[in-house]
């Protein structure tokens, strides 16, 4: 019964979406500036029915209704409630329904919240957004239906992979979806703006809040994913240049460029084409990412299972979307006079756009290269992380410098600012002190440290300057400060991380550098839906004479039968101690991986600071007209 309700609810929402498109076209021919109440009412109805569909699936999971094959395949009666709920979007069909809900929510919010006076602009946005919604609904109902029934109804489900039963992983898809699915609204708005000839400043004011919000969620979504990878995957790393991670990073580059460009558009009416193109590209890249993840052409730790038919649908949709956008862009784009003076703020933001585009291209090439090589030549390869690190790291240096120096320039001026000032002097001094303490030889890392310190000091200085003048541009200061900290701490972490692998038996101990690791004992235990073997370890720090206790586990889950290794992590303020234990072939020898990872908490905190700038920007918009 739930299955039928779900299908009916989704189909109703689809029909309403199609009807909204029709109503919108009709409304275009009518003059006047008021959007008729009918459209608001149907939009609300669309929202109600799509939310209802999602709720129905959620209920199916919570109450373990296995009459729906999706619930049967991905859930189990013994799963904890929190994970039953998050299981709703932890699979292809359910997450697609979440995609659609976000498309609908953004469509509705744009309609009721947007104060732009151009009626055609709002109507066209509605049309494009509803085209997206309708196509995704059709895809859902014909190819990936979460409400598909199964008969006879099984009395137990097949369970969800225990690696996916984790709080960070549970919230990270919804966060990311608000990010890159939310970018759909400015995709639609950009196309609409071209057709209805919205002028620069008005477009900027309209788009800015949506861009800020989606950027904030994208940043925090990526953070949640990295935190999950760090705590759950057991490698001690937080970024692997995995194709799925890259798929969330690429829209982020575009959103960052867009966020900066829209500031220029608002103040100086420049970068109009950039804003339009970036708005279109962000959502396009999100769909490309979805294609890569769901079509099965990439191998990754967390792609959804292979199904070429899904890939085909998404690819077709992508092609249509891209070519229509190009057509609309070339037909309607206004001619723009480019007159930014060199060394104005606007010029620096333009440079930033090029940097972001470059980073995007590098990551895209690395992600797609294996696919292309395999398809065209049949050679099977994978692209290792060194590629990304090697190519991107050097460019961080000019980027950090420009982030520090750019905001010092005025919007209109073309004077160069003094390069050698007290901030640079202070930063160099601080850097030299740090250099003599760390004694790192690598030139690249030292330059990165120097320029990240420069950015940090400059933003602190800017903060005090702004306080004095009561002229706070807090969002830029916090985000740039956070970014400087992020790069600084990532570099320090890279230099000082320690890792060691060895085999031990219970009762033995091992000397590694400044530490003595003692395998005290082994105990068995059990949790909600698993049994585990816990190792008790004592780590002695010979230099500081402190002791730490860690207890990594090996867990055996029953549904489905899986083994996981739970790392034991002591997250201290300045450093994390990380221990993973594994056992092979039931011998009495355990393999231990011991890691010391400095400043992990500072890395997470810096990303939070960066994202905070986006939220402050969002709340600040009332100050500007």
């Amino acid at each position, binding site marked *: 019964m739930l299955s039928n309700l779900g299908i009916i609810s989704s189909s109703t929402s689809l029909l309403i979406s199609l009807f909204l498109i029709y109503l919108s076209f009709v409304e275009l021919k009518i003059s006047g500036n008021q959007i008729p109440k009918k459209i608001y009412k149907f939009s609300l109805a669309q929202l109600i029915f799509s939310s209802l569909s999602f709720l129905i699936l959620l209920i199916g999971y919570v109450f373990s209704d296995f009459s729906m*094959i999706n619930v*049967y*395949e991905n859930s189990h009666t013994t799963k904890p409630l929190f994970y039953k709920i998050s299981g709703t979007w932890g699979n292809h069909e359910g997450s697609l329904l979440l995609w659609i809900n976000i498309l609908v929510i953004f469509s509705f919010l744009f309609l009721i919240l947007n104060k732009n006076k151009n009626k055609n602009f709002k109507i066209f946005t509605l049309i494009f957004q509803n085209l997206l919604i309708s196509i995704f609904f059709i895809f859902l109902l014909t190819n990936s239906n979460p409400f598909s029934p*199964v*008969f*006879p109804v*099984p009395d137990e489900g*097949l369970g969800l992979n225990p690696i996916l039963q984790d709080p960070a992983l549970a919230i990270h898809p919804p966060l990311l979806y608000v990010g890159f699915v939310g970018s759909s609204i400015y995709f639609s708005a950009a196309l609409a703006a071209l057709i209805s000839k919205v002028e620069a400043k008005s477009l900027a004011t309209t788009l800015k809040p949506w861009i800020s919000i989606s950027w904030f969620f994208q940043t925090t979504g990526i953070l949640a994913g990295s935190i999950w990878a760090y705590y759950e995957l057991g490698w001690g790393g937080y970024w692997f240049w995995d194709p799925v991670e890259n798929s969330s990073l690429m829209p982020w580059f575009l959103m960052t460029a867009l966020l900066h460009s829209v500031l220029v558009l608002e103040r100086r009416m420049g970068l109009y084409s950039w804003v339009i193109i970036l708005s279109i590209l962000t959502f396009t890249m999100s769909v490309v990412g979805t*294609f890569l993840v769901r*079509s*099965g*052409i990439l191998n990754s730790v967390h792609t959804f299972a*292979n199904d*070429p038919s899904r*890939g*085909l649908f998404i*690819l077709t949709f*992508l*092609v249509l979307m*891209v*070519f229509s956008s*190009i057509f609309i862009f*070339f037909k309607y784009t206004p001619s723009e006079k480019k007159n930014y003076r060199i060394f104005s703020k606007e010029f620096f933001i333009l440079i930033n756009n090029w940097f972001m585009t470059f980073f995007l291209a590098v990551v895209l090439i690395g992600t797609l290269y294996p*696919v*292309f090589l*395999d*398809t*065209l030549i049949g050679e099977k390869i994978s692209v290792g992380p060194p590629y990304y690190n090697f190519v991107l790291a050097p460019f961080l240096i000019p980027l950090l410098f420009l982030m520090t120096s750019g905001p010092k320039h005025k919007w209109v001026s073309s004077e160069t600012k003094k390069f050698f000032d007290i901030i640079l002097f202070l930063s160099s001094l601080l850097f030299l002190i740090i250099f003599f303490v760390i004694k790192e030889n690598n030139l690249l890392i030292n330059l990165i440290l120097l320029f990240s310190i420069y950015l940090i000091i400059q933003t602190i200085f800017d903060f005090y300057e702004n306080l004095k003048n009561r002229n706070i541009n807090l969002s830029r200061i916090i985000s740039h400060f956070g970014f400087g900290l992020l790069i600084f701490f990532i570099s320090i972490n890279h230099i000082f991380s320690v890792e060691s692998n060895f085999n031990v038996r219970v009762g033995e101990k091992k000397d590694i550098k400044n530490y003595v690791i003692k395998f005290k004992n082994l105990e068995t235990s059990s949790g909600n839906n698993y049994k585990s073997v816990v190792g008790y370890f004592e780590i002695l720090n010979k230099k500081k004479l402190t002791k730490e206790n860690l207890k990594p586990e090996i867990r055996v889950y029953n549904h*489905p039968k899986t083994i996981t290794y739970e790392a034991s992590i002591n997250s201290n303020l300045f450093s994390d101690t990380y221990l993973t234990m594994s056992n092979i072939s039931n011998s009495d020898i355990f393999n231990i991986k011991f890691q010391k990872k400095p400043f992990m908490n500072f890395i997470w905190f810096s990303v939070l600071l960066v994202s905070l700038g986006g939220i402050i920007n969002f709340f600040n918009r009332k100050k500007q007209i």
Partner: protein
Amino acid sequence: MKKINLIIIFIFLIFIFTTLYLSLDNRKIYNTEDIVGQKIDEVELTLFNNNKTFNTKEISNYKFTLINFWASWCGPCRKEHKNLIKLSKNKNLKIIGVNFKDNKTQAKEFLKEMGDPFFILIKDPKGKQSVNFGVYGIPETILVNENLEILKKYIGPLGLKDVNEIRKIIKK
């Protein structure tokens, strides 16, 4: 200026999208066409209920045989099972089931609950025997004739379209 940009972008995009499309196809083609027309190997398989053996050579005694790879833990297998029951009613067709990487008790319960369309049931707890048929994931189904030639390979659950296709083939 604009026209040239447009053309370059177009060509570039067409190249990218075509390659992506081909990459999707890559799997399908390799999986299905390659194996159709070939003969299945003559191997000794182990029966599910006792440990006696069954040689695939014996398939030549039957006009058409459907070999279905399934397990109790596989959701889509559950979906297609009623189609197998439907097909088992056909006198021209014999269905051999290969229970892939499964637990014996759970497999028995599955058949008790959903019905047993299998003329012969083979066990393959490690999946090694299935490799001989080019099968690594389930559900997969192969239609073979009395010459041991593979007429059709279905990857994924058997749908109604597949059932009708099979029915048409075995009528001849």
